[in-house]
C-alpha cells in the first residue's frame, strides 16, 4: 500500500514554499531562542553555558510550576474528551443538515477572539456571575463558590475554549468507521456498550490521540486563559516565561524556561504518538 502512494521527487517540490516559510519564520527564530538560552548573563554578553538551565532546575518552585502546567493541561484535555466524544459521536449519527448545525456550533468558539471569550467567562464564573447566582438561588450553597482564580475555573474555561480541537478530529475518525462493523457486532450478540468498547472506541483511537495532542498542546500554552482566569496566585509556565522575558527583561532565562517547557510538552506528544503507532499496528496489522 505504501509503495503506490510514495511521493515522487516532483511532489516534494510542492512543499518547498511552505518549507522555506517555516525555515525562515519558525526554525530560524527557534534556533535563536535555543542559542539565547545558553547565554549565561542577562545582558547577553556572549558567555555561553548551562547556567540558565541549572538555575531553573535547582529551584523547586519552578519544577512545581512545570508540573502544575502539565497537569492542568491533562485535566482540561480529559474534560474535553469526556464532553467532546459524545458530541462527536452524535455528529456522525444525525442527518446531514443537523450535522452542519452541530459542526457550526462546535466551531463557533474559534470564531471569536480568545480574549473576548475569556472575559466572558470571568463574568460567568465570578462571585456575581450566572453560575454562582444560580447556585445561590437554588440554595445549593450559602456562599458563592470560588470558581474564578481557581484551578477548577481554569480547567473549565480551557475545556470550553479548546473543545473544537478535540471534537473535529474525533468527528473525522468516527465518520470513517464502517457502520457495518457495528452492525456485525450487534448481529453477533454484543450489546450496545460492548460494541462501543470493543469496536467503536478502539477504531476511533487515532482520532482520540490526534484530538488529545492538539487540545493538550493548546491548553498548556494558553497564556491568556491561564493568567486571566487563574490570576497570579496560580502560576503556569507561559506566565513565568512572560514574567522573565517582559517584566524582568531576562531573555536568556526566559529562553531556557521556554526550551525546557517545549521539550517537556514534546515528550508527552511523542508518547501519545508512540501509543497511537502501537495501537494502529495492532489494529490494522
Amino acid at each position, binding site marked *: 500500500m505504501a509503495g503506490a502512494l510514495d511521493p515522487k521527487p516532483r511532489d516534494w517540490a510542492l512543499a518547498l514554499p511552505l518549507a522555506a516559510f517555516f525555515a525562515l519564520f519558525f526554525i530560524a527564530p527557534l534556533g535563536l531562542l535555543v542559542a539565547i538560552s545558553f547565554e549565561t548573563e542577562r545582558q547577553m554578553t556572549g558567555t555561553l553555558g548551562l547556567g540558565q538551565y541549572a538555575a531553573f532546575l535547582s529551584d523547586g518552585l519552578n519544577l512545581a*510550576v512545570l508540573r502544575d502546567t502539565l497537569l492542568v493541561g491533562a485535566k482540561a484535555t480529559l474534560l474535553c474528551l469526556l464532553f467532546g466524544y459524545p458530541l462527536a459521536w452524535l455528529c456522525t449519527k444525525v442527518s446531514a443538515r443537523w450535522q452542519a448545525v452541530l459542526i457550526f456550533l462546535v466551531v463557533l468558539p474559534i470564531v471569536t477572539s480568545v480574549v473576548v471569550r475569556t*472575559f466572558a467567562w470571568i463574568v460567568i464564573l465570578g462571585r456575581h456571575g450566572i453560575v454562582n447566582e444560580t447556585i445561590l438561588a437554588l440554595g445549593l450553597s450559602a456562599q458563592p463558590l470560588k470558581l*474564578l482564580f481557581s484551578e477548577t475555573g481554569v480547567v473549565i474555561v480551557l475545556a470550553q475554549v479548546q473543545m473544537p480541537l478535540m471534537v473535529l478530529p474525533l468527528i473525522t475518525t468516527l465518520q470513517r468507521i464502517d457502520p457495518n462493523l457495528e452492525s456485525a457486532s450487534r448481529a453477533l450478540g454484543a450489546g450496545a456498550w460492548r460494541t462501543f468498547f470493543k469496536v467503536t472506541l478502539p477504531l476511533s483511537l487515532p482520532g482520540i490521540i490526534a484530538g488529545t495532542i492538539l487540545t493538550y498542546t493548546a491548553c498548556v500554552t494558553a497564556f491568556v486563559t491561564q493568567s486571566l482566569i487563574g*490570576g*497570579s496566585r496560580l502560576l503556569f509556565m507561559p506566565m*513565568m516565561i512572560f514574567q522573565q522575558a517582559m517584566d*524582568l527583561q531576562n531573555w536568556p532565562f526566559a529562553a531556557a524556561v521556554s526550551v525546557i517547557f517545549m521539550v517537556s510538552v514534546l515528550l508527552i506528544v511523542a508518547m501519545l504518538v508512540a501509543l497511537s503507532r502501537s495501537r494502529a499496528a495492532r489494529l490494522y496489522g
Partner: protein
Amino acid sequence: MTFEMSRRAFLASATAAAGLAFAPRGAFAADELVAATFGGTWANVQKQILAPYFVKRTGASVVQSPMLATEQIAKLTAAKGNQPPFDVAMLDEGPALEAIDAGLIAKYDPAKSPNFAALNPKFQGAYGPAITMQAIGIAYNPKTVKTPPTSWDDLWKPEYKGRVGITSLASTLGLAFLLDINRLAGGTEANMEPGFKKLKTLLPNLAAVSANFGAHGALFQQGEIDIGVQNFNFAEELKAKGVPIEFVRVDTGTPAWKTTMHIVAGALKPELAYAYVDSQISPDVQSEMQKSPWNVIPTSSKVPYAGLVAEKIAKTPADLDKMVFFDWAKVNQNRAAWTQQFNRDIRV
C-alpha cells in the same frame, strides 16, 4: 476590461505588493509619528486630548500604540541597532531607569521643548520630562465597606476575608504597595523581608492577585473584590463611569512615582517626537487632562491644582513633596529576586 495577466506580470506585481507590506514604516507617511502610550485610561486621555492638540500644532498625524512599560523596553531592545518601532516612549520611573541604562532612550534637549522650562525642577529629567505623578491608595466599594479605610492595615481586617485585591509585581501598583508595607514594617529597598512577611499575613484576605493592572480594574467593576490598592486616576475614572468605588489616601503617606516621556534613541522623526512630548507638558493639555474624569496630576508649574486633584491629592507643589518615593535604581537591582519570592509566597 480584462483580467488576463501573464504569469510573469502576476509574479512581478505580487512581489511588489509583498515588498510594500514589508517596507519600513514611515516610508510613505512622511509626517506620521508613532508614540507609545499605556493601556486603559492613558490611551483614552491621550487620544482625546493630546493627539488633537499635536495634530493642530504640527499638521502631522500620530499613531498611539498602547503598551506596558516593560513591553516598550522589550520592543526597543529587540530593535536595537535597527529602526525603532516607535519614536516616543512613555514609562514609569523604574522602567525608565532601565531604558536609560540600556541606552534605549536619548538625552532630552530642553532647547527643542519650549514648555520644558515651566516644569517643576524635579520633573525636568535629563532623559525626558515627567508628565504626571501617579499616586496610589485604597479603593473600596462604599456599598459593602461601610467604614472608610484610612490605612493599609485596614486591608488586614478580618471582615475583609477573601475580599481584598492587589496586583502582581508586574504592575508598578503592586510593586509600590509591597515597597510601602515593607517601609512601614521597618524594611528598606535593600531589605524586603519585613514586607514579604507582612504580605504573607494578608493571604487569607486576598480574593485575587491580578496578573496585570488591566485585569485588576475589572475586579472592582464586577464586585469580585470590595477593597484593594488602586491608582488615584483610575479609581476616579471608574467612579465617573458609575462604578461604586471610592478612593482614599492612606494616612502613612501616599506612595507615588513619576511617569515620564522620552525620545527613543535613533528616533526616525525626532522633530515630531519633541513636538509631541512638548505638547504633553504644555499648560493647555495638562489643564485639560486634570479635569474629571481623567484627573491627571499636572507637572507644569503653570497649571494650578484643581478639581479632584486639589481635593484629594495636592493643593500646592509642596504637598507633592510630602508623598512617599522609592529608590527605583535599587528596586531594579532586586526586582527579579522579589518576583520569584512573590511567586513563591502567594502561590495557592
